């Protein structure tokens, strides 16, 4: 079946249908990771986005429940060059195509994904539509343009949990699966703006009893929970739109150790009084070099997935930049000089991506220990 991808600026790519048939709208973004398509698809930060993998051969190792970062595929649609006809991996539970069809996720294949990536790189991320129903470019452009814009969108409220829940699964190991029964030492409240499971697993692994809270949980409710520390998760959309969370963080700063990742980092930045801005085409991949200033200027290769960034120029004097991107010098991590609060823009939980930065989870627990946790 034929499928088209049409961008809001009129650029169109014709390919074939992949996954479910139908239409999917969203912001078109690219990810340069060579592996980890399942983690990417199920990462709630991709909500509202049509994701293209720059690596052309996708689906080779199928999908497995173990590698899901949330309960379902979160990306709005998937764009690939060539999906594999078969799966080849001892862990594979099913083919990617079937997985997408089961979850009604529209995809397109056989397009020049490199041309698409170059287009996005030079023109910036933009809205688009994948359709297997119509191929009139003008009509599809109109639909894409009518779609909500990423700037100003509060998508966290769409993907967050409905009610608090506890999480107790630890990290995965080959041949053993996920670790269980880890003795908790800290009580952590994790804000779910679209949280990835592997973040929770890292927290659990380091001795955190984690309770996940909906994005709009107030500071008062958290206070009633009496946590040792508060975690601000990753998530989709524009951080400025998540005003309720910014307010909550403002109220909590200094009260508990706070650690933020990705959207959580941006929300912390806004709460600290800085501004955020939308990157031209974002950082999405597993190869992003970050300068770790705090650790003596060493380079961390990080997993990243963000379309917005904290404007370093607007950070108040009592906040220092601990990490910046070696590629474009944008802020990748910061900490408050006096208060127990720090955050990173990239994904130390990886999944997918390198494990160079898992140390931050230890920093968080150390901070909780220092601030009266039961370490």
């Amino acid at each position, binding site marked *: 079946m034929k499928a088209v991808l049409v961008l809001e600026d009129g650029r169109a790519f014709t390919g074939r249908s992949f996954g479910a048939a139908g239409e999917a709208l969203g912001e078109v973004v690219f990810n340069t990771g060579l*592996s*980890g398509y399942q983690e990417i698809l199920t990462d709630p930060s991709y909500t509202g986005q049509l994701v293209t993998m720059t690596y*052309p051969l996708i689906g080779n190792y199928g999908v*497995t429940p173990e590698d899901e970062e949330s309960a379902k595929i979160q990306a709005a649609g998937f764009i690939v060059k060539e999906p594999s006809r078969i799966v080849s991996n001892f862990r594979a539970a099913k083919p990617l195509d079937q997985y997408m069809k089961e979850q009604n996720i529209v995809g397109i294949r056989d397009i020049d994904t490199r041309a698409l990536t170059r287009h996005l790189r030079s023109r910036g991320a933009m809205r688009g539509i994948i359709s297997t129903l119509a191929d009139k470019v003008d009509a599809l452009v109109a639909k894409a343009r009518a779609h909500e814009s990423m700037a100003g969108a509060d998508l966290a409220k769409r993907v967050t949990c409905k009610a608090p829940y506890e999480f107790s699964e630890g990290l995965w190991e080959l041949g053993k699966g996920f670790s269980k029964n880890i003795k908790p030492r800290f009580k952590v409240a994790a804000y779910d703006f679209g949280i990835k499971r592997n973040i929770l697993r890292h927290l659990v692994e380091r001795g955190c009893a984690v309770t996940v809270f909906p994005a709009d949980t107030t500071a008062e409710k958290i206070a009633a929970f009496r946590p040792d520390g508060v975690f601000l998760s990753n998530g989709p959309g524009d951080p400025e739109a998540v005003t309720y969370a910014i307010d909550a963080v403002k109220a909590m700063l200094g009260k508990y150790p706070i650690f933020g990742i990705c959207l959580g980092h941006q929300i912390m930045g806004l709460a600290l009084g800085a501004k955020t801005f939308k990157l031209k085409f974002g950082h999405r991949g597993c190869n992003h070099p970050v300068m770790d200033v705090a650790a003596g200027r060493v*380079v961390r290769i990080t997993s990243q997935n963000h379309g917005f960034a904290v404007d370093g120029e607007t950070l108040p004097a009592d906040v220092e930049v601990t990490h910046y991107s070696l*590629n474009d010098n944008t802020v990748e991590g910061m900490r408050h000089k006096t208060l127990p609060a720090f955050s990173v823009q990239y994904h130390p939980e990886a999944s997918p991506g390198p494990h160079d930065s898992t140390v931050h989870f230890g920093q968080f627990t150390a901070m909780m220990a220092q601030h009266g946790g039961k370490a």
Partner: protein
Amino acid sequence: MPKRNDIRSVLIIGAGPIVIGQACEFDYSGTQAAKALMEEGVRVILANSNPATIMTDPQFAHRTYVEPLTVDILTKIIKRERPDAVLPTVGGQTALNLAVDLAKSGVLKQYNVEMIGANLEAIKCAEDRSLFKQAMVEIGLNVPRSGFANTFEKAMEVVDRVGLPCIIRPSFTLGGQGGGVANTREDFVEKAKWGLAQSPISEIMIEQSLLGWKEFELEVMRDRKDNVVIICSIENLDPMGVHTGDSITVAPAQTLTDREYQMMRDAALKIIRKIGVDTGGSNIQYAVNPANGELQIIEMNPRVSRSSALASKATGFPIARIAAKLSIGYTLDEITNDITKKTWAAFEPSIDYCVTKIPRFDFEKFPQAEALLSSQMKSVGEAMAIGRTFKESLQKALRSMETGIDGLAEVSTTPEELREKLKTSYPFRILGAAQAFRFGWSIEEVHALTFIDPWFLDNIKEIVEAEAALRAGGLPASADAMRAYKQMGFGDRRLAALCGVKESAVREKRLALGVRPVYKRIDTCAAEFEALTPYMYSTYEEECESEPTAKKKIMILGGGPNRIGQGIEFDYCCVHGVFALKEAGYETIMVNCNPETVSTDFDTADRLYFEPLTLEDVMEIVDKEKPVGVIVQFGGQTPLKLAGPLEKAGVPVIGTSPDAIDRAEDRKRFQEVVAKLGLRQPENGTATNKAEAAAICNRIGYPVVVRPSYVLGGRAMEIVYDEESLTRYMVNAVKVSHERPVLIDKFLNDSTEVDVDAIRDGRLTVVGGVMQHIEEAGIHSGDSACSLPPRDLPQKIIDEICIQTKKLADELNVIGLLNIQFAVKGNDVYVLEVNPRASRTVPFVAKATGVPLAKIAARVMAGETLADLDFISQKMPKHVSVKEAVFPFIKFSGVDVLLGPEMKSTGEVMGVDANFGSAFARATLGSGSKIPRGGRAFLSVTEYDRKAVVAVGRGLSELGFTLVATAGTGAALKDAGLAAEIVNKVKDGSPHIVEMMEAGNIALVVNTTFGKQAIKDSQSIRRTALNLNIPYTTTIAGAHSYIAAIRATGQGEMEVRSLQEYHAP
């Protein structure tokens, strides 16, 4: 961290001659390292015995020593140059071993030389298998079950514990030399003995065979701030058990989930830190059990390697260059990414294409060797191809091989035969897998036989299905359908064969449908940043990024995969062509598919197309770029074969015309040339069948040299002494046809061969060098040692040779390079062959004379005159240069070391000195042999050589050798008044000569032989000499050279001198 100020001069050790397991990838890495250090203002001292390398060009170092790579010589270089540091990690295992020896012998300490890149401890830990294993266990990683043995008895103990099948790996050898898989106890006994003999420290490791496991590699880099990055992952299509150099390999890894990949990455970080490679690159090899993902660490190379060269070409990240910068103190975040110019080297390349490398083998040159693959590397070259899918890159790589296939060629076999064959690992087994799918077998069945991952098999199957559709439906009629096949990597020729039409018909149809390739850039970052370096590959998609310029440009076609007869020398010429034309103001475009080479470095030419060298692929680039000239005479036979078709297609082939090339190559036409000029040629004829051949031989008389037309490296060339052998040759050895006749020449016994390289600019011809072969005629010029200037040719013969060279150059209207082989018999000069192109000897002549022949030739082709370039007369060096060939016999057990008209050498070394004897001694040392100082010399020669052996015997005994000989030879010596101890031939029973050699009682072997039975009887002598590294020669001329060398080395210390000093004005 900025550059260290305490490293102002660095000694770079090169890899020496090209051998199997160590090829031009180390010229690539060495050249990059030298360039990178020169850029930083470091004084570079370079040592390498291989004259065919770019790295030994005087411009790439302040001091270039083309000297034997021995501890003794390197010590002298260090003493003379006093470098602050030695960089041992860019010259393969050779350099690493030498650096270790230099450190152990205390030389580095004595002269206060720091080892940079990898330190002694790190090298030891990575190379010593027991230390490595222990280190892995300490960091919680798994290694295969194994044990060490330094005696045969111990080996038998270990194998009981490890179990069969097992792998035997000798310690401290390159390319897994001497290794092997043992399936049975008998097998094990033989291989363990051999392995113990191969290891310089008589040690083998016996390890669990991971049969059916998958093999992966990671290329890792670390800087002195402990930043570690992975440059590339590589998945071997062939499972464990086949040396990675002999495997089809694919980048990036295809069948790993992120979890499994990150396990490997985590392990890599731990390993490089544990082993302690301070700065630079390492290669780590892994095995993965496909049933449960279990990971085992196979080995780590604490240096740049063949795989890192591949990874550099596959990603655009120049590992050796960066490694060199790291070694002098920079950190990854301080080094610019040369491709994007605005990001840094501190990152992990992402790629948006698939890369496939296929090795090339030359088993047909060693008929006694079994064409089976194992843990010992046997391939002599490789081609790499890039596509947007695996299918595309695979098919492009297949047609890059130049083995006569254009894709997954059909194999003529039965299902029964194939089923047995597929269980073994052999070159191009992938074609067998494809054939299995043509037989209708399932992926599961083929996987069970081959252990090739089902993902690769399904891709192969998909190609086979497409082929079936093409066979049934003919050429695709629509542009979409045509494009779909092209996207799968089908070449026009393959489509033509499948559809039963001519290649030109496919091309016409394709152009009519408007289906043309686009060119994508290799940018290290999957398009995330703009690539400023035009390093490109073709594919069939929407957007083309080639952006050709409007500049005046010249395209140079490279040599494709290395093979015996066409190797680094041709890449050297291509690279020089590029440099010269850049200097002359042209934009240069390189087309090649060999990942090992300097020519495919992204900053050699202005623009690089990493593409197969077929008419289709070259024509598409020509159409895109529209160069003012295309040079075909630098890359060897590969581009030369394209000359005619390219010219026919209207491409401006510059230099000597394709017609002139044909006049030189076509025997009949060449005979006319020779006749017209009144020159002499051995009597000859051309036969298209057995009867014709016999008639010719009866006319001109035996012995004759027979060979197929249009080959390089003397492929299938033989000397035939009687009609019986002629018949065997015509029936078994070659496929004769009207298009491919057999050439027959009278063999000139006892003549001396001479090679000449010259340049002609359209009017003037200038000789670059005249080289006298040391071995007599009948031995392939590539295998013969040679001397420049000639060792003992009368001046009037040399003058005559130069005159004939000019005549031939004028008659063929050569523009550019010309190589002629002459034979001198008495006072007569015979023309053997004329090659109006770059030859294997061009780099040697350039280094011997200081004249950059290839560069001059390139500019002449672009229209300048020799006078413009200030090269109007032959330059006569004051010193003597000797080139010696290096052979791969040690890799092929059971193969005889006798030389003949078919080329067998893989590489060469050069020795320079004031006289022939000393220069030959240096070349001999450089080739890995020794110059004996005294002891017993064993002489055993054919009846024919009995007269000549007397002078050899006399010479040796004057030098103090005791002569030992077999009965016949001994009698000849005694008749001449020389004392000789008589020893049994092997067939005469114990005590015999081989026992004497094994006992260490022979210092030199002179063994000439003739006739099938005699050759067979004496093979063990030569093989033993080879295995025990006893100096040997199989020719009388070689024996005389040894005598000269022994005499010269007896006259005092060997001093070292750089090329810069030799060629100082």
